[in-house]
């Protein structure tokens, strides 16, 4: 399972990097989305992958070995929400730049 996760993170990250380096704003925003999946997954697996060990101590058992690490989860949860906010901001800047410059090139002008 670890291998599958690692390869997937790699592919997501690679696709994201490729897109980030592209010249069109929409490509970059897609790249950012993919990068954030990859990075969120990466931070998440810092707590190691485990099945059926959700960090919910409902039955009062507080042996840490029974649960997965909750800290990366909390960090990733906020990261997901902030990711939404930054995507929104980027989208608006992208649209504004397109309106002002008449192009969707990331530099605001078409390459010569």
């Amino acid at each position, binding site marked *: 399972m670890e291998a599958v996760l690692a390869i997937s993170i790699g592919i997501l990250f690679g696709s994201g990097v490729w897109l980030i380096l592209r010249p069109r704003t929409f490509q970059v925003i897609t790249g950012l989305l993919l990068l954030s999946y990859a990075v969120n997954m990466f931070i998440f697996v810092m707590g190691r992958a485990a*099945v059926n060990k959700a960090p919910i101590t409902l039955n009062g058992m507080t042996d840490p070995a029974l649960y*997965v690490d909750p*800290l990366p989860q909390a960090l990733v949860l906020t990261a997901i929400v902030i990711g939404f906010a930054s995507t929104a901001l980027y*989208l608006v800047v992208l649209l504004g730049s397109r309106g002002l410059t008449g192009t969707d090139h990331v530099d605001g002008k078409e390459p010569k």
Partner: protein
Amino acid sequence: MLLLILTLIPFAGSFIAACMPTDARNREAWLAALIALTGLIIAIYLYPLINSGEVLRYRFDWLPSAGLYFSLRMDGLAWLFITLIQGITLLVVLYARYYMSPKDPVARFFSFLLAFMGAMVGVVLSGNLIQLVVFWELTSLCSFLLISYWHHRADARRGARMALTVTATGGLCLLVGVLMLGHIVGSYELDDVLAAGDRVREHAWYLPTLILVALGALTKSAQFPFHFWLPHAMAAPTPVSSYLHSATMVKAGIFLLMRLWPVLSGTEEWVWIIAGAGMCTMLLGSFMAIFQHDLKGLLAYSTISHLGLITVLLGIGSPLAMVAAIFHTLNHATFKASLFMAVGIIDHESGTRDMRKLRGLIHLMPYTATLAIIASAAMAGVPLLNGFLSKEMFFSETLEWGSGRWMSVVAVIYGVFSVAYSLRFIYVFFGKPAEDLPHTPHEPPRWMRFPVEFLVLCCLVVGIIPSLSVGPLLQLAVQSVLGDQTPSYSLAIWHGLNIPLLMSVMALIIGVIFYLLLRRYANLIQRDKVPLLYRFSGKQAYETVLLRLSSGAAKLEKWLSTRNIQPQLLVIFFTAIVLAIAAWPQFIHLNFTLTDQKAEPLFVALWVIGCACALTAAWQAKYHRLAALILVGGTGIVTCVTFLWLSAPDLALTQLMVETVTTILILLGLRWLPPRLTPQHLSLTIPASVWVRRSRDLGIAVVAGIGMAALSYGVMTSNVKESISDFYILRALSEGGGSNVVNVLLVDFRGFDTLGEITVLTIVALTVYALLRRFRPAAESIKLPAQQLHPIDPAIHQSAAQQAADGYLMIPAVYLRLLSPVICLVAAYLFMRGHNLPGGGFVAGLTFSIAIILQYMLAGTTWIESRLHLQPHRWLFFGLITASATGFGALALGYPFLTSHTAHLALPLLGEIHVPSAFLFDLGVFAVVVGSSMLILVALAHQSLRSHRQPGTPVTSSPTQPIKELS
């Protein structure tokens, strides 16, 4: 404690003055005068203590770990300067009350003036060197603000900038010097530093320290070669010139040299640097002063030369020279402040300061003219006035000093020059009254003249009975600097017929002759350029340096950086890859002991889909945006399922909601992007350079992906023992009162983080809203997209609301409207159970927003908003207030910020429920999430409804509001 009051009241006064109405001249002046008077009274009250040789101290911890204390210290020297500052402030405030025009925004003026006074008091009283530098820079800033007070004038702005650049650069040097000094001594406390003089002078760093401190002092006191800023600072209102640029701020440099005199002086280097700079300044300033046409310019150069004189005295370094230096500082402050005020009166009443125009003022304003003549006689060093005494002390010091007599010759030349420019100054009062002045001059109001009268009286009193009037104060200051080395000196007008007296008389006589010669042969009155020296313009040099700096910076920027984003990102990723490769050897030493768990086929299949989606999205993002968006959404869903699979239900929920909202968001944006045709459509061939670039990027992407995969695999299989996570699992229920550890972490353990996060969310939402208010789409996207106008679609004839009522959206409308309360209920449920089971404010907020967005999508913005006034701004406001109030509530109960409490309430029907205070906090999070996501999406959705200005054309009325038109 009194010291603290002394330092703080000016700042408090500054704040109050800033809040007053701009035309409240009298109130502002009363306030400022009251504050100066309080300071003066405190100073006088402290006199007996200081006089008994005590050093007053006040200190509290500022950054004790870094050896920094807020420390105030008052000894004789500080007392003298404080009294001087407060006294001059009082007079200047009185004067400024009449000088400032009712049209000027005086609130600002008095506010800056008081702030400056506070900063200056801070410099003088600082018992810690770092703190001294802080106040020092504050005086530079206040001076900048005061010089640029009339900021509509270009010369004021330029002068202010120049003064700030020079003095703040000096301040920076001073900071470094002080840090080195502190390092040598091992403490920044002034007491320790003063006691460590020998150690400092023997230290290897002595010379750099001295140079840096001297740079600070010399720039502040306008010494050669930094003197040029002072004449340009004369663009300030005259009270400011008289206050900052003659009596107080420029004395800060002198004060610093006096303060550190016991530590730094007494070496060859000190003499060369300080006395050398002082001598050049003294001669240069007095010579330039003769050839000015502006009265204030003359006084500015004269100030420069007098400061030079004091610097020379400090540079000589003998105890008697120190006495003379302190004495002359006082004398200069009195006569120069009064002269500036007199010039201000002349300017105010006649409308000009040009000495080529002004004539015969003694007939028009006899009183002011007499005062000014007496003060300028003090400036020239005429007997019976205070300037004479200190100048004579200066002469006798130059005789004592050095091997040759050349220093005394220089001193006499200086005396000659100062007599000459004083005559030049006096000249405006005599002759036939000028006819062509902007106003006819007359005497100023009674109280505007009073400060001048008072200061001139001081000049006379000190000049005639020095030992009775100023003697004890001087003794006090000298004692505090020199300690045991205090020499015996006598302040008297008549010391018998001796060489200094002869020098004074010579200077007077030659000065008069020199002036007459200049007038006859050098066309002094109308001459434009300063002879000999006009080539050496400090201003020119300053501007050249600045120009070179900025053009150099521009070149460097052009050479090293780029405005294009792609190369920058390329460099970032490339560097990251290089660094990762460099760190590889350490990475492989980690303890990889965990075994790979067996993957279920379903999980593998899931990720095959996820990766395929990602790769296809990367491939299609350029030409098929909608497809790419859907594919990215697919990857997002796979991520979401993975979270669920791997024991993170909270993450899965949040990811699912965010995924939905993000997709809607980008869908709303797609409409404004330009259509893109593939090269095949345009029958273009892709040039080879593009292929090279793509291959390079692909290479980087592949390497980055492989690296990330390896890193993740390594992390997942390495075994790390120590983790802080156990702490949270163990304490979540017992201390956080919730069994969902992730939620407890968010709202309790790391609540402060979350508070920061929702603040960021709010800021982003408001920024998005603000950006969209001025949104101007490209011309070709203003029309409705072709897909919405295709005649085959019956929906184009209906408004969004009609489409939902009886059009193609009828069926979704029925069940989505039915579902909407259910979704809201789910949101409430997720919110309520969040502390113990998966859920919480974030997820509930997103769910709730989706319930509303669905309605928007269904029936259109107009229909919804005529029925539902959501007002997302208020949600944001409410959320932030609730979350912060929860935090402050804990603070009010005596616990640290955001400490949570749990209560169990028994309610009818619902039974016992669990209400932690974190619940309220989570409510804040909920409201912020709803508010921000709604604000962003609704603002974006509204763009299709707004009428947009065509780029480049003035307001057009016709083409937009497409939906309304269609309905």
